């Protein structure tokens, strides 16, 4: 056991932390040197090379202004010829094989990126708790999750290897080109991966040794967690740069010649929104997976103590997932806006062209997520004495969610027989057709999020009696806030029907502002009102209904499936291009698969992922037979309001 006064060890920990930090910067120092060397080499070239040749001036495909030109530093993108530039395994579509290996790697990559984020927050909450008993609960939860993540790291690395082999075997020409473009940073990616493994081992195996409650060693340990997460995010950003480049290439000329500045290749028009969307998506997905794990352990627990622990853990995981799910539609909206700004026809292909039906599927998935979250919270309130007073509101909240879902799912146009078309008098239904446009859909999703925020506020209050003297004013303010938000969202939604599309798109901003106001202001006021509140009775942890646990499984599968369907969408929007507008797909699979095929592959991918994850859970459980004994939560024990 460490002593707080053990100065030598503290200094040692700080030195270790500094060394890891320095190692992090090392690859970037090397990048600067290489970039500098290139500039010097370019300066040494005195003869004027011909246009398009290495060393000549090339016009950037995307950048303008002062960044418009660069020095041609690579060959043009090769023209892909079937079968020379492609491979195949037997009778299978090469693209589908690549799809599966990519998706599996992505799932595990997302999981091992999300779990350390989750763990960091839990450990931080644990370290900052005044009540050490509660602090230890959070710390144990974080430790348990890290244990699972450790096994998943190995699986992620193996799947990464399989992915590279699949690329090399089936798409050698394409992979060769991308590798040549990203050559300056590829080794950094590999080095960071090694570094991450090292940091991970120090972090995990040093957990008990550095656990002095909330002392200096614990903060050093949290510092290592920060570094681990920073490396994870940089790794994810680097992996994302490939897809960003494939969708919206920059840093190359029209023929795909590298123009010498790797930052421009990385910083494509879609890079930032894709990264933000991915980080939020990963975090939400991580919450879903942890929630499913906890729900499973909850169902299979043999003692009430264990049940209480996993009930509480599943709630925390669900809460983390939702925290990231709520801003996700806005991040998605921003990404779409950037796509429209980058190439209008790409945006329309997504939203109103070939891929429009995928958005109906996406709407189904998001609606499933929100309805499930609300359902879980309704169920969870069953174990909170005092929540009975809110039960009558459930049916109204559910009705709003269902109406919003129906409106969101209504397609713009319907597939009809000629007789039906004649009977309807046109392609669009005179009434239902109105719900197929963006105005209705924006209104629906904003209403659903606002409703979820309200359900959460009710959950926060469920077993509490507010005692602050300004309670009635607070309640009036909250009622007014939610009512005004709904009215504003609805009004702007209707107003959108009377203005052109390019103006209409701007209305989504005030709609989003209304929603976010309920989220931030509403929850903040509600939390403030709960300060010093009286407890009706403690939450009966461990007495959550079985239906609630199964709702968490649905939540986890829906997260996983949504990731898959949106991946299909993002990838399909390139249509017949490997790298948009630069490298054409000339294989026999240069067509966009119909949605049904994608749905089958997605379900298969999700099943494969969860089967592998079950194996990971089982492996970690072999080493965790003693874990429940660490559980300190008593059945029915109250947790602090902060965890609500």
């Amino acid at each position, binding site marked *: 056991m460490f002593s707080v006064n053990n100065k030598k060890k503290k200094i040692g920990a700080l030195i270790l932390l500094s060394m890891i930090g320095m190692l992090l910067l090392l690859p970037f120092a090397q990048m600067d040197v290489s970039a500098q060397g290139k500039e010097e080499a370019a300066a040494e070239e005195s003869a004027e090379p011909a246009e398009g040749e290495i060393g000549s001036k090339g016009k950037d495909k995307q950048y*303008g202004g002062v960044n418009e030109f660069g020095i041609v530093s690579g060959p043009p993108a090769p023209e892909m*010829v079937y*079968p*020379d530039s492609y491979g*195949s395994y037997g*009778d299978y579509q090469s693209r589908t094989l690549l799809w599966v290996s990519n998706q599996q790697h992505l799932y595990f990559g997302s999981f091992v990126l999300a779990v350390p984020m989750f763990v960091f927050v839990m450990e931080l909450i644990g370290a900052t708790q005044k009540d050490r008993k509660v602090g230890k609960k959070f710390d144990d939860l974080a430790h348990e999750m890290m244990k699972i993540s450790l096994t998943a790291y190995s699986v992620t690395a193996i799947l990464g290897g399989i992915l590279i082999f699949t690329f090399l075997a089936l798409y050698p020409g394409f992979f060769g080109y991308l590798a040549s473009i990203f050559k300056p940073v590829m080794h950094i990616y590999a080095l960071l991966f090694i570094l991450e493994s090292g940091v991970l081992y120090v972090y995990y195996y040093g957990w008990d040794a550095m656990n002095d409650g909330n002392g200096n060693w614990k903060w050093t340990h949290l510092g290592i967690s920060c570094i681990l997460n920073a490396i994870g995010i940089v790794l994810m950003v680097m992996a994302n740069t490939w897809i960003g480049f494939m969708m919206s290439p920059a840093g190359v000329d*029209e023929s795909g010649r590298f123009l010498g500045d790797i930052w421009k290749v990385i910083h494509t028009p879609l890079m930032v929104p894709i990264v933000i969307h991915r980080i939020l998506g990963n975090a939400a997905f991580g919450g879903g997976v942890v929630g499913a794990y906890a729900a*499973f352990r909850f*169902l*299979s627990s*043999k003692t009430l103590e264990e049940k209480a622990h996993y009930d509480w853990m599943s709630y925390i995981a669900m809460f983390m997932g939702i925290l990231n799910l709520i801003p996700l539609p806005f991040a998605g909206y921003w990404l779409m806006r950037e796509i429209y*700004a980058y190439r*209008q*026809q790409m945006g*329309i*292909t997504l939203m*109103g*062209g*070939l891929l429009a*039906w995928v958005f*109906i599927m996406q709407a189904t*998935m998001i609606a499933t997520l929100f309805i499930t979250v609300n359902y879980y919270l309704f169920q969870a309130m069953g174990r909170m004495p005092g929540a009975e007073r809110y039960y009558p509101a459930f049916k109204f909240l559910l009705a709003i969610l269902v109406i919003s879902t129906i409106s969101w799912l209504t397609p713009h*146009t*319907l*597939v*009809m027989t*000629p007789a039906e*078309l004649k009977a309807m008098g*046109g*392609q669009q239904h005179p009434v239902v057709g109105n719900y197929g446009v963006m105005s209705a859909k924006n209104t629906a999703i904003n209403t659903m999020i606002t409703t979820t925020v309200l359900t959460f506020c009710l959950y926060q209050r469920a077993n509490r009696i507010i005692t602050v003297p300004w309670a009635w004013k607070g309640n009036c303010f909250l009622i007014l806030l939610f009512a005004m938000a709904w009215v504003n969202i609805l009004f702007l939604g209707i107003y959108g029907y009377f203005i052109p*599309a*390019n103006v209409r798109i701007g209305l989504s901003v005030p709609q989003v502002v209304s929603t976010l106001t309920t989220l931030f202001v509403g929850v903040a006021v509600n939390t403030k009102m709960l300060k010093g509140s009286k407890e009706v009775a403690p939450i009966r942890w461990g007495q959550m209904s079985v239906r609630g646990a199964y709702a968490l*499984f*649905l939540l986890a*599968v*829906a997260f996983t*499936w949504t990731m898959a369907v949106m991946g299909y969408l993002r990838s399909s929007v390139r*249509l017949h*291009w490997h790298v*948009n*507008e*630069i490298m*054409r*797909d000339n294989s*026999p699979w*240069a*067509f*966009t698969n*119909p*949605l*049904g095929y*994608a*749905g*089958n592959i*997605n*379900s298969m991918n*999700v*099943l494969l992922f*969860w089967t592998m994850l*079950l194996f990971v859970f089982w492996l970690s459980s072999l080493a965790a037979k003693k874990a429940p004994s660490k559980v300190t939560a008593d059945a029915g024990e109250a947790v602090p309001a902060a965890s609500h």
Partner: protein
Amino acid sequence: MAKKKGAGTIVIKVALWYMFILGAFAGYTNWLPQIRGDAPEAAEAINLDEVTPDQLSTMGEKIIFGSNDPLGVLAKGEGPIGKGQCPLCHRFFLEQKADRCPNLLALPEMEPPLLKISEEARSHERVKGRYEEFKKLHANGEKNSGIVPHATTGGEYLIESEYCPNCFVVVGFGLKGTNDTVSPMPIINKPPIELADTEIVAVVSFLQLRDGDESKWTAKDSWESYFGKELAAPAEGEGEEEEEKPKGPPVALGSMTVDEIVKEMTCFACHKIPGVAIAKTGMIGPLLIEKTNAPNRIKSPEYKKAVKEGKAHATTPREYVIESIMDPGAFIVPGFADDMLKDFRHKFTVSGLDVMVDYLLNQDVASAVAEGMDRLPNEKEGSILPPPEASLGEVKSGDLS
């Protein structure tokens, strides 16, 4: 106290729940409309000396809408989007919704007044007034295309707007923050759309001839006067380049004719196919008259047996023909051996397969008899040729016996 459930039971229950959810999601996606996006076909080779304005206009319509019946496509609930992708942003019909770019409605009788004039006249109006500002703005050449705006007629304006969308931007349709000086439209002769010069002329021909007045057609002349050179057909030059490339294995593409596919896939080596000059003598496989064969085959006891065994899966004639090409071992026509090549699924593109299947499903007894073709003696379904005394007129389409 109730007996606790073991982890195994819970694993099974959760697995079943997962399977149910995944099945429901997959089922739902299969229930939604299935739209496949094919890669655009290569530019059609045309003889510029012989092609008529109408032919160019028809070709242009196909490039814009992907069909020569765009209203029919709209009625099916699909977007009539062709290789040119124009209807993604431009509105051509009242039934269509697209307002991101100037509308291209051709309805002279409609209000407001702008719609009263034809596209040609409307374009002619645009090369006056505000156009001069764009001439000054791009006096040194527009930066993406290198073109200096210099259209003088409506026809030239239409041509110019395809090669250099920034050379003139209609008020209200520019990118946000550019004061209507930068267009959101891509350059049409460059990736990702990459139309050939003749295809652009075809598109302009369609726009000029929509109201049926041939006197307005200037597309080819406008192109030549705008660029100051003669319009060249796409096949020239490209063909020479093709010759130099190492030839890969045969592939059936949607841009090929049935004759070309049959030749490339060597179907003729085994099958006789009515209407295909090269496929008159095949003696190894069945006669391919699938309008007649396919409906009967899927009803046959032999096929039903194959379905029961899980080998065959077709329920419609179309599925049967696709299955026969993609998975020849699924069902062997009685009297034949399983010796058809099994690699066609790698050789046919989806659109190439469509071309072949559509053609075969149109061939029946009458078309075979008209060319004097008959089934092979080992075909169970028997001869289709009438007895010597009967005349051709007595053979009905669909008659098998």
